[in-house]
């Protein structure tokens, strides 16, 4: 392997790694705030790509119907729980947040259905259609079992993946899609030939990570999310609703997923069921970060991307084996580093 090949593979690895980084951020965000290993996260990305593709073709994406059904379900659940708690005055607010807000983009999509839209409008509409799905799913699926074991939450997330992928198949058909690239070709940057796609993805990843960092350190909502992640009881004691934090975390994860979906849609062939594999790779990155630390997860994801890139050159047949087994030394290393911390014991109660 000469230097040039190494450099090309490096670029490729960074590109893949940047995508995994964004995913890993979403995983860590959701897990720390809600203890959910969100196995169906990749499906949101697939939904985003498929929705964009449908809009670009001038078709009405099935996302619209999903969104409407979820919004109605969530609203019913919220209203019922408000009535049970005797806080009926919250109902108008509930209707706005859980019904009107999600249905707005759906209505917009219905109105423009069949038209070929300007590129930026389809991008905005895609984001507006995909983002609400995440918090709605949280409200409907996960909130009722928020105290269940991590295993149960994980399995429900896995089953959710099956269900969402099934819906995607119904809405978008079995064939894989790729959208028209937003940027194509290479840019000359300081004498280096950089793929335009790479620059766009890396810049987006940096912007997202910076925006998240600012959000977490400067805004009250961001601090509340971190507080929930660090100490759920502490958060409740200052009046932070862990459920609200969960919704916000899922909404943020939804934003990340929508953006990643748009970015990768021109780069990889997205099938209705691509979510699991895409999600798993992001998951590997999150594992490297121990599911706790954002910066470590980001670096870890980058490494996963690079490992994948070089492995595909040296041994394409064993590429995935190499990528997944690379978890083992990392986990062992992390464990050796952490072994002096006392293990949290969770005793069962009667």
């Amino acid at each position: 392997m000469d230097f040039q090949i190494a450099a090309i593979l490096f670029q490729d690895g960074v590109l893949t790694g940047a995508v995994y980084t964004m995913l890993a951020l979403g995983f860590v965000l959701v897990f720390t705030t809600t203890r959910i290993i969100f196995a169906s996260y990749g499906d949101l990305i697939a939904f985003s790509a498929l929705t964009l593709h449908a809009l670009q073709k001038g078709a009405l994406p099935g996302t619209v119907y999903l969104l409407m059904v979820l919004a109605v379900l969530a609203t019913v659940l919220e209203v019922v729980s408000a009535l049970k708690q005797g806080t009926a005055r919250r109902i108008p607010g509930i209707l706005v947040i859980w019904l009107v807000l999600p249905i707005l983009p759906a209505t917009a999509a219905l109105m423009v259905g069949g038209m070929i839209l300007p590129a930026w409008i389809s991008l905005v509409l895609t984001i507006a259609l995909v983002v609400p799905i995440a918090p709605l799913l949280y409200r409907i699926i996960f909130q009722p079992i928020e105290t269940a074991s991590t295993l149960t939450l994980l399995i429900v997330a896995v089953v959710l993946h099956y269900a969402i992928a099934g819906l995607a198949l119904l809405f978008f058909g079995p064939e894989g899609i790729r959208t028209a690239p937003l940027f194509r070709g290479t840019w000359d940057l300081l004498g280096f030939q950089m793929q335009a796609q790479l620059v766009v993805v890396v810049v987006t990843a940096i912007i997202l990570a910076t925006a998240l960092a600012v959000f977490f350190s400067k805004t009250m909502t961001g601090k509340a999310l971190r507080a929930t992640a660090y100490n759920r009881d502490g958060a409740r004691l200052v009046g932070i609703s862990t459920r609200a934090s969960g919704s916000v975390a899922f909404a943020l994860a939804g934003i990340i997923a929508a953006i990643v979906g748009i970015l990768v849609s021109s780069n990889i062939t997205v099938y209705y069921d691509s979510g699991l594999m895409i999600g798993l790779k992001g998951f590997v990155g999150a594992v490297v970060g121990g599911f706790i630390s954002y910066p470590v997860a980001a670096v870890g994801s980058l490494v996963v991307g690079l490992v994948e890139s070089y492995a595909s050159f040296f041994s394409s047949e064993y590429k995935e084996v190499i990528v997944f087994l690379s978890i083992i030394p990392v986990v062992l290393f992390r464990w050796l580093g952490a072994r002096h911390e006392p293990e949290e014991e969770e005793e069962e109660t009667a």
Partner: protein
Amino acid sequence: MTIADQEPIKMDARASSYMAVTGVAIAVLLALPLFLTSFNILLLNMVGIFAMATLGLVLLTGSGGVTSFAQAAFMGLGAYTSAYVTLRLGLSPWLGLAAALALVFVVTMAIGYVTLHLGGHYLPITTLAWAVAIHMLFGTLDGLGAHSGIGGLPPISIAGVAMDRPERAFYMIWVTLILFLFAASNLLRSRQGRAIAALRGGSLLAEALGISAFRTRMMLFVLAGELACVGGWLFAHTQNFISPSSFDLTNGLNILLMSVLGGVGSVLGALVGAGAVMVGRNLIQDVLPMLALDAGSLEIVVFGAIFIVLVQYSPKGLSPLLSRWLPPRPAPALPDIKHDEVLRFGRAKEHNDDAVILSVDGLEKRFGGLVAVKDLSFDVHRGTIHALIGPNGAGKSTTFDMISGLQSPTSGTVQFNGTVVTHTPARNMIARGMARTFQHVRIRPQMTLLDNVMQGAHWRLTSGFWAGILRLDRAEEAAYRKTALLALKAVGLADQALVEAGTLSLGQQRQLEIARALAADPEILLLDEPAAGLRTGEKAELAALLSRLREAGMTILLVEHDMDFVMGLVDRIVVLDFGQHLAEGLPDEIRQNSKVQEAYLGGLD
């Protein structure tokens, strides 16, 4: 009246209804091939095969607290090994099974050795990696069909009869499964099963009882892998065809899903989960076209929705719902004990002197910058009750944990019976003669009092895995059940021996912990706040019990808050305040000590 003959009639009734239900169930099951179509038998065969893999996971997750994504991969290892042995080497499937079991044993041991030391979420995550990697390796096996898979696997023959039709395979699979279920049930009731139960929710109790959490988890991990392996072997030789896609991550997740839906809390969950998932999906496949809905894509959506609703309704799975209706497996009858029979303290009785049994010298513990215990020294004499008292946060429990080996001191030494045990791990202390109770009671609420106490005798019993499964441990079990019952009698709980521990009051749970410690035949009892939360009457009973134990030669070191309780009972008191030795002496001296009064009642001036 002896304790044993209190409830015999009721027990017999439960036993016979259990036998009746089990017998009818098995009879109906074995008659099924007579009136089911081949397809339905095939479906049941698959249920049986997946129930085996799920059973492994139920044991591993429900009892050992460990989750694995790799069950389908281990099924695949079993299937592929046997395929290689039969197709490439031309040997019998039985040799294939032997080779598969051996390979899975080696692989699970290796994987387990690398990863079972890991706590928390690390282990499941590594099994995910193994699952993906092993599955992908199957696709690269050129000699065994690579991604396309390979057909023509020979059927298994039993006594010359080939299990080549679903009806015949049905008996092979289900008889095997029934045996596995009974074996698993036996295992969970044996010494090893109690060790597994001790592990649930963390390894602290297990370590204190002398149980190696690592070895127990390893046993479960290997066992789960072998169960999956047998399932995979049966799968290969009844389908006659295998391909990597049958053993991919999706199927690994499916097995997890079966275990969660069935419920990881009981052996029953494996069968219920596998049955509900496979039969349920078949049902959905049948029903959807009737509703004029598109087959295929909607099936999984409908299945997903039903699954999620079920889990939301019953987060612990379906088997707990069933257990309400079905009679439980009856426990063996209580041993007979005579009215005047009492627990013997073998080791405590051996020495009849008042020499120093436990000596703490210059003990110190720091957590980061925080000094929890500082330069603490005291001696405990044989056959006495010694109290360690002090206000909340004085460092009593930390001291206790250092003595019992749960924490390592930063400096200083602990000597027990003349041997330095400062850094001896907790699980070796019980065999050396030190048994303890916990400030926050650590019992197994779903187990009977008797089984909880039997856990204390773990280190004294010898029967292993096979003895448990095959019930070769009956003589030993019977002997120690008697010991356990006597220990319960000693603390006054013998009449509730078969009650679930979770139903006891806090005071009784503390007594139960003492009984468990006594069953270990200790020389010294370490009691961490035994009187906390007890009512006045209960405290008096506890004090009387401890006095009796002292008379029987037992040495007791207790940490306590409640001076009322301590004063009339103990021989000597050490007072701790802010991790330091504040005072030491006889109870009356301590009571008069103004420094102690100040430390306790506090005050602002």
